[in-house]
């Protein structure tokens, strides 16, 4: 085995291999940085060249691409609050908050360094693990997978902290939105209201962008400043970010380990690992107060996990032909195009190629992170630019990203609707991550539960793996509570009861009109969902009914809490935000009439002239750039846009 390792290593450092890997890395960085493109666009750029290439060289190129996408998309997550891909959604929470506090360079540099370390650790683990991984992957049956989705859902409790019921309600709504579409067990359609678009469920990209990015943009527009609220010197933050990672060595190692392990589990991987490690960072931290407001650990944890996860995801892809993530699925296509069939053959006859894959992954991680580190400082200065100038470009990027989901105008409408929910949530302080976790995990939870019961019956829940994960969930849910009780008792025994009790009562309930709007809206939604799913069979309906139950119960608890405890009425503003949402829908209307490219160009021009009030020649130049970008992307990637009346005449 050692000689195979060494021969793949020498293979790795040939000129052709390095050259093509660098091409892969560069393509990966470009598509990673542009939000919404991600692995799929990158692969479709490279796939045409693949057929007929030398396999080891071609694999190097593909791995170069796969490895750096979770690195490159950090730029969008941190600087613009746009979740680059499903694996970097947790990064947005603290990364963007740090950017707003003027610490974008710090967040970026520590994100890239932890990405690099995570990727390297993942590759090391993978080289040893891949040979013996088969039994482990096979030991995760549907019931263990179901428990792991529950573990992901339990992160909601960790993330919502004191606003537990609101968090659970948000998660319940997420679950309900997540089950839109076909019931896996029976083929029945749920909550699609006869709309073709909803038959497939809402695309993750659209929901992620809507819930996180749109509300942030609206808020920044209202503030009329730059992204960074305070003036800052960038250079200092850059070095500090590197230092942060050095101080959090343990966290990086733990999250990389979690990442590579969860990555090996087929069918779960990317979507939960960032929230799981984020939750872990919150729980293991002594001072939790800064999470969500800009704690560097909230960036380090998911970033060191997602690159390791990309390594781990190679295990089921190579050994079983079952991809663990979206990018891995496309990588699998590349393998097939090269004439390589995944399976035990990857260990028995193609072990050299397998090691080429793993080490290309490691090398590309280092290369990609190094390039990003170099870019971090100049790119971070974007946060000092007046936001109204950036806004139209970001808006176009977001709509471009959302439209790539299914290339239907309905993608944009869904973006607007989810965005409106996001704004309400943000204004009233309801947990948006909880909503997203529910949305992401709903299909997995339903599917694996159904499969576990069908395959294993009741014995599904007495398996050792299930009990272990179950114990872990209980620990996560009750540890904080036990800890509090223990601390209080210790305080009581010392006779200095004062501090803790004042802490408990110092937190007063607050209620505002947006809270009421959300609660009433959610109850209405639950009612509509109940009517829609009334006639379903038990197997098809159990999950939506469960989601409705969770939602309603959490809302009732929240209302009871407000009735039983003194409530302070707080003023919550929403009018101006609504004005922007209406504007967004008007923009969608323009796109329907005029076509995407023309509307985007005109929108940028008018916005820059009337709202940002920049000089006409700058506005014209920037609008031309927007048009050039869209048309260019369309040509290179063979994308098509929504075509209105005028677009075909102007841009064909």
């Amino acid at each position: 085995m050692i000689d195979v390792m060494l021969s793949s290593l020498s293979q790795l450092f040939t000129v052709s291999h390095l050259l093509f890997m660098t091409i892969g890395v560069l393509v990966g960085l470009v598509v990673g940085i542009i939000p919404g493109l991600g692995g799929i666009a990158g692969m479709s750029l490279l796939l045409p060249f693949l057929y007929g290439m030398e396999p080891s060289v071609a694999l190097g190129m593909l791995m170069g691409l796969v490895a750096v996408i979770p690195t490159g998309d950090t730029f969008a997550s941190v600087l613009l609050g746009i979740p680059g891909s499903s694996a970097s959604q947790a990064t947005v929470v603290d990364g963007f908050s740090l950017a707003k506090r003027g610490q974008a360079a710090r967040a970026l540099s520590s994100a890239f360094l932890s990405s690099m370390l995570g990727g390297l650790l993942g590759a090391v683990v993978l080289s040893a693990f891949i040979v013996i991984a088969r039994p482990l992957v096979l030991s995760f049956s549907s019931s263990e997978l179901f428990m792991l989705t529950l573990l992901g859902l339990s992160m909601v409790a960790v993330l919502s902290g004191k606003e537990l019921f609101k968090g659970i309600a948000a998660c319940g709504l997420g679950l309900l939105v997540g089950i839109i579409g076909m019931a896996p067990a029976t083929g029945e359609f749920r909550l699609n209201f006869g709309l073709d678009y909803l038959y497939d469920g809402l695309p993750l990209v659209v929901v992620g962008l809507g819930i996180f990015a749109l509300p942030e943009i609206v808020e920044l527009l209202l503030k009329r400043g730059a992204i960074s609220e305070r003036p800052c010197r960038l250079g200092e933050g850059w070095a500090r970010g590197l230092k942060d990672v050095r101080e959090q060595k343990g966290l990086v190692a733990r999250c990389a380990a979690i990442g590579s392990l969860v990555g090996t589990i087929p069918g779960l991987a990317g979507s939960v690992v960032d929230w799981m490690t984020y939750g872990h960072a919150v729980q293991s931290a002594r001072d939790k107060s800064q999470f969500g407001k800009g704690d560097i650990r909230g960036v380090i944890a998911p970033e060191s996990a997602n690159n390791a996860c990309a390594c781990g995801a190679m295990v089921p892809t190579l050994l079983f032909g079952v991809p663990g993530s979206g990018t891995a699925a496309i990588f699998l296509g590349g393998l097939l195009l090269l004439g390589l069939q995944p399976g035990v053959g990857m260990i028995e006859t193609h072990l050299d190629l397998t090691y080429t894959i793993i080490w290309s992954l490691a090398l590309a991680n280092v290369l990609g992170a190094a390039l990003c580190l170099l870019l971090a400082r100049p790119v971070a200065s974007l946060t000092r630019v007046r936001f109204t100038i950036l806004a139209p470009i970001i808006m176009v990027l977001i709509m471009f990203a959302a439209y790539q989901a299914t290339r239907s105008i309905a993608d944009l409408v869904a973006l607007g609707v989810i965005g409106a929910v996001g704004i309400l949530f943000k204004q009233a302080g309801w947990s948006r991550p909880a909503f997203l976790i529910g949305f992401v995990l709903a299909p997995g939870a339903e599917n694996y539960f159904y499969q576990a019961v069908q395959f294993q019956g009741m014995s599904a829940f007495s398996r050792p793996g299930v009990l272990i994960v179950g114990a872990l969930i209980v620990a996560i849910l009750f540890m904080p509570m036990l800890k509090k009780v223990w601390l209080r008792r210790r305080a009581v025994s010392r006779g200095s009861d004062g501090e803790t009790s004042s802490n408990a009562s110092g937190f007063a309930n607050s209620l505002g009109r947006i809270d009421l709007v959300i609660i009433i809206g959610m109850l209405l939604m639950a009612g509509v969902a109940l009517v829609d799913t009334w006639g379903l069979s038990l197997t098809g309906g159990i999950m939506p009914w469960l989601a409705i139950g969770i939602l309603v119960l959490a809302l009732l608890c929240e209302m009871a809490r407000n009735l039983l405890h003194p409530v302070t009425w707080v003023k919550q503003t929403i009018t101006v935000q609504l004005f922007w949402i209406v504007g967004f829908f008007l923009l969608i209307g323009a796109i329907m009439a005029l076509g995407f490219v023309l509307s985007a160009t005109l929108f940028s021009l008018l916005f820059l002239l009337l709202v940002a009030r920049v000089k006409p020649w700058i506005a014209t130049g920037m609008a031309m750039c927007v048009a050039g970008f869209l048309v260019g992307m369309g040509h290179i990637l063979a994308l098509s846009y929504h075509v209105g009346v005028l677009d075909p005449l102007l841009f064909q």
Partner: protein
Amino acid sequence: MHIPAVIAQSKFSRGATLAIAMSTVAISAIVSPQAQASTDVPAQIKWTIPFGVGGGTDVWARFFAPWFSNSLPDNPTVVIDNVPGGGSINGANIFSIRASHKGDNWIGTSASTQYPAMLGDPRVRYDYADWTPILATPTGGVVYAQPRLGESADEVMASILTSPVKLAAQSPTGVELPVLLALDLLGVDVDAVFGMRSRGEGRLAFERGEADIDFQTTSAYLSSVQPLVDDGKAIPLFSLGILDDQGDIVRDPAFPELPTFLEVYASLNDNQMPTGEAYTAYRKFFASGYTLQKLVMVPKDAPQKLIDTYREAAREFVASDAFKQESQAQLGPYEPVIGEVVQRHLDESMDLKDSTREWLANWLKTEHDASI
């Protein structure tokens, strides 16, 4: 468009073109030439694939694209346009509305495009009668079982005829439909567990020991199940066989030693052939999902001369030794079918009588608790 030209020819000029291609990316973004060759063959062919990048049908199309490009007069560029969604219904719907009738728009479909059309899925807005086939590639498949059910195929058959077995499937109307029908005809009580995202996940459930029997199409069987069989961890039961040009189901050339489903049926039923609606449904879905598993189609009202040119080019490269060699890894030991023969099979299989459809809906409801 510069890039697709390079794309389609890259197979033969290999990696060197990639560097050039990357540098022309920037240029092609700005310049958009409209140079149309004066011949009948369009300079650019846009090939809609209603599946995502990297999926089975996408890889299949990317394998064929350079062959078409190199065999057609004037070497047109073949650009693949992935329009995923709704398990291919979305892309096929869009193609049926927007495709040009000049013959420069193709669509690549698969069993999961054919089946909803046959079953009358309300989401389907396309009609196979509007399209005409250029080429089709067949596949076969094998049903295999856990060794805990018996030591030989005969023992396993005897045991699964008496007690219910679990099979991991994608959806009630997915590619497993003919397999479910075949097992039902044999008298096997199948508990299908739906919700797998691919046949690969189904195989994983089998390898974990959760599923008692499983089914894989030829290429996946050869790479992933054959090693299990060699290790004694799986026992092959029967192949689905293949449909010959006369319309008879014969042994699969990939598995000459395995009996076909019909042979097994005959041996269990005094050499009788199956009859009735169940068998009609089986034959139709087997033909459209396996004999014609993947199809290259153009709108029917494209110029007939162009359609003939396409078919001629396909015949030419399919007959070449280079293709036979390269296609082994991608298509298995099956030769693509071209032109009229495809049309004949297609006409036969896609036309499902209302009575058969009703029988099928009822069968799915009672046997698998699924509504279509």
